């Protein structure tokens, strides 16, 4: 471990200072304002009101629902994500590269759009699949009912498992295969190697992916709002949303919302504490700065069946809902049959060329997504470096600060950002795009920190030490050794921020002004307004933009790699 020189203001101190400053300004101030708002009434501490809000039975139920849905989603996503990651990285599955890209596609699909699509397909009375099956087999009762815990978990899993998938893929690719090879040479069976070497090495990545899913799912609004709300299933974010929209949005409701957000913050703190406890049992530095081509497991007879299974999974979870969205987007009005006479491009034309609202929304989302992703990527790599590689007291606080916005529902982040950036402290960003940018940075900082610190954790300190020993300054060591090695982490961070920011909903819906609508806001409000076909068409266009954006980025990445 490098020993930092103290009492001189060199590169490390500057990095530390900047990291703390960024996190305090972007994250801590809004969160503290949320806590202050929930616990203090007119400047006085008021625990009684907090208790009376917390003693409502709705809140327990919402918390239990949040936990139940998050656990189910986490278990299913971790299993699916790890399995597919292993298949595309470490086996001789056909078309692996292409399959890997396909498995990342659900990450681009907004989960609330997915929920809307699955509602179209599987709603018990009129879902296309249910009607088809009932016609085919002459059934009286529908086969599937998407409304319920099972449906919510299944759909969250479909769209959240890439969190685990990305993390595990990255770790598997960077893993030093000599460890496994030496075990094999020593006569260990595949099962033993997997159990004793691969899985323990993967554990930090699997855990951090699983943790992301638990936090994300607990604070997830869209799917529960679409599939649960009408049937009395609600989690904390949905309850906050409802509370805030009751009582004509009086400040009491906003306070009730912030109190519930405090419950989520506490749960998140507990989960993070738990994760640190698990992870601290063993940290592995498994990159030594060299690139390996990992050994491939031969699937033999299972190769084709597993390939078909992967294709079926992709077809069922990606192609089917996407096609549904595009087809419904072409209908003249919702509910008419999908036939050639009823399909046209009119909705798409209207959205792209005639309607200011949707054109503004597309432009806003693209610029906000790029801006937030670039800024957060660079800030994240710096802060992660301080957290992972520098021995500084109190850096756990830094890490916790970075995870906070992730565990707070977007709508409450938005409230915090409004409280912080609306002129009370001299800067008024309210009703501009900048406030949305600030909240995106706050919201997605956790993604960037996770991706970057995972990458940094695997860069062995010996490399920096070697550079320093050869006479390089701290700055030069960072530039020439650390940055090139963590670039994959930075790119991962970029995708993890840019793609979800492109269709971000929960934050923007609280912050948008008439001319600063984002794509997510436009899709959701159109859907809620009963403009189902227009909202499906806009969702289709959003998907095209996101996929195109990713292809462009991929192209650049491949060019520089080649």
């Amino acid at each position, binding site marked *: 471990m490098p020993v930092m020189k103290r009492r001189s203001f060199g590169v490390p101190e500057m990095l530390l200072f900047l990291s703390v400053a960024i996190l305090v300004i972007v994250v801590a101030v809004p969160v503290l304002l949320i806590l202050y708002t929930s616990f203090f009434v007119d400047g006085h501490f008021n625990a009684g009101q907090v208790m009376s809000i917390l003693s409502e039975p709705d809140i327990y139920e919402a918390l239990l629902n949040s936990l139940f849905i998050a656990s189910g989603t986490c278990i299913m996503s971790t299993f699916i994500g790890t399995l597919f990651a292993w298949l595309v990285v470490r086996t001789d599955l056909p078309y692996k590269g292409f399959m890997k890209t396909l498995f990342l596609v659900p990450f681009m699909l907004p989960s609330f759009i997915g929920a809307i699509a699955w509602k179209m397909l599987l709603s018990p009375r*009129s879902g296309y699949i249910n009607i088809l099956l009932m016609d085919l087999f002459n059934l009286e009762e529908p086969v599937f009912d998407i409304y319920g815990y099972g449906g919510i978990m299944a759909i969250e899993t479909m769209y959240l498992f890439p969190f685990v998938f990305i993390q595990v893929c990255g770790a598997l690719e960077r893993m030093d295969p000599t460890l496994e090879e030496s075990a094999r040479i020593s006569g260990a069976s595949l099962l033993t190697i997997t159990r004793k070497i691969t899985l323990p090495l993967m554990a930090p990545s699997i855990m951090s992916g699983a943790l992301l899913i638990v936090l994300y799912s607990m604070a997830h609004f869209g799917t529960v709002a679409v599939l649960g709300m009408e049937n009395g299933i609600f989690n904390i974010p949905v309850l906050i949303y409802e509370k805030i929209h009751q009582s004509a949005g009086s400040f009491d409701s906003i306070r009730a919302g912030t109190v519930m957000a405090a419950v989520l913050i506490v749960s998140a703190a507990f989960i993070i504490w738990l994760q640190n406890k698990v992870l601290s049992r063993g940290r592995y530095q498994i990159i030594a700065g060299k690139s390996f081509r990992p050994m491939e497991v031969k699937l033999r007879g299972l190769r084709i069946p597993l390939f078909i299974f992967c294709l079926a999974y992709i077809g069922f979870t990606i192609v089917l809902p996407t096609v549904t969205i595009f087809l419904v987007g072409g209908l003249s009005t919702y509910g008419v049959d999908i036939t050639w006479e009823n399909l046209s491009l009119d909705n798409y034309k209207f959205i792209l060329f005639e309607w200011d609202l949707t054109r503004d929304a597309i432009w806003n989302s693209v610029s906000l997504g790029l801006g937030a992703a*670039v800024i957060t990527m660079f800030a994240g790599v710096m802060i992660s470096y301080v957290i992972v590689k520098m021995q500084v007291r109190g850096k756990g606080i830094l890490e916790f600060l970075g995870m906070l916005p992730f565990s707070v529902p977007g709508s409450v982040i938005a409230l915090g950002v409004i409280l912080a950036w609306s002129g009370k402290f001299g800067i*008024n960003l309210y009703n501009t795009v900048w406030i949305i940018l600030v909240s995106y940075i706050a919201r997605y900082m956790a993604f960037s920190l996770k991706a970057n610190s995972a990458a940094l954790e695997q860069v062995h300190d010996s490399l920096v030490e070697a550079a320093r020993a050869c006479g390089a300054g701290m700055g030069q060591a960072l530039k020439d050794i650390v940055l090139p090695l963590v*670039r994959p982490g930075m790119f991962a961070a970029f995708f993890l921020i840019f793609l979800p920011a492109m269709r971000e909903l929960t934050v923007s819906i609280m912050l948008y002004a008439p001319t600063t609508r984002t794509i997510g806001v436009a899709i959701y409000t159109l859907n809620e307004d009963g403009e189902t076909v227009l909202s499906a068409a806009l969702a289709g266009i959003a998907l095209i933009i996101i996929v195109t954006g990713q292809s462009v980025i991929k192209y650049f990445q491949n060019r520089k790699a080649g």
Partner: protein
Amino acid sequence: MKRRFTAALAGLALSALLVAPASQASAADLVIYTSMKEALIGPMTKAFMAKHPDIKVDHQSAGAGKLMAKIAAERQSGTILADILWTSEVPDFYALKREGLLEPYVSPNAKDILNPLPDFDGSFTPIRLGTLGIVYNTRFMKKAPEKWSDLFEKKNSPFGIANPALSGTAFVSVFLLSEQFGWDFFKDLKKNKAKMGKGSGQVIDDTAKGDLLACLGVDYQTFSKIDKGAYLGMAYPPEMLVVPSPAAIFKNSPNLEAAKKFIDFMLTEECQKIVAENGTLPVHPGVKVPAKYNLPDQTEAMKRAIPIDYPKLITSKQATVDQFTEIFGKKK
């Protein structure tokens, strides 16, 4: 190589950010927060801007509950962005007036309008009389329902009502129906598989698809879908739901004169015709709704309407919403 890409990306993002604010509205624009859908508010602002080319009108269309949340947040921050509010959530207007947030303005065009609101002082002026009826899926319900009790004719027929916490028309309708028929009406509906939807428009689309057999639907939203070929029908039972939608100017609006002009314009025959052509009742007594909509005219609608006890409506908002969610919010 890699660096060039990163630099290009950063450059792209920065330039995007620098350009983005250019698309923002300038300060002199008139901003309207409304629960009316694009089909209604869009043509109105277009017609207004054609008459007043010097005023640019921007509108934000969302459910009344959402708009009030936005206004509450904006009040916390010090400035309400909107100049005009136009929704169907009548109690909100009385609450805002009580808090001194509305600018009273009696438009010269307001003299002859049909105004069901008591204590009119210009703080808010009704622009349309929204009607709600039973919207039904014509594939699943061959016979149009005629009275409210027809909803119980078929067992297990899901009926949709928008969330009264989010939708102003749904709130007033729930209040009126509970006054008229008691809460048992809703309990029976729930027993018959009724569901609480989200926005007022969404229940209509769910009915068109067949997820719901029928729903409580707003006039113009339903008619615009019927025009496009949706399998929907609109039925008005004898006890009609007529909900006035008032508009108000916010105090300290920086665009006060423009806002007054817009209120004046909304009450003109020209604008009221836009209201009528969309299939909702105008407040201008001389303007008639096109016959194709089969909508009772203003006089008949007012006669058949369940009378609104305004003081009670205003004071019982939270209780109504709570009672409704108590019945509908619980699990199946």
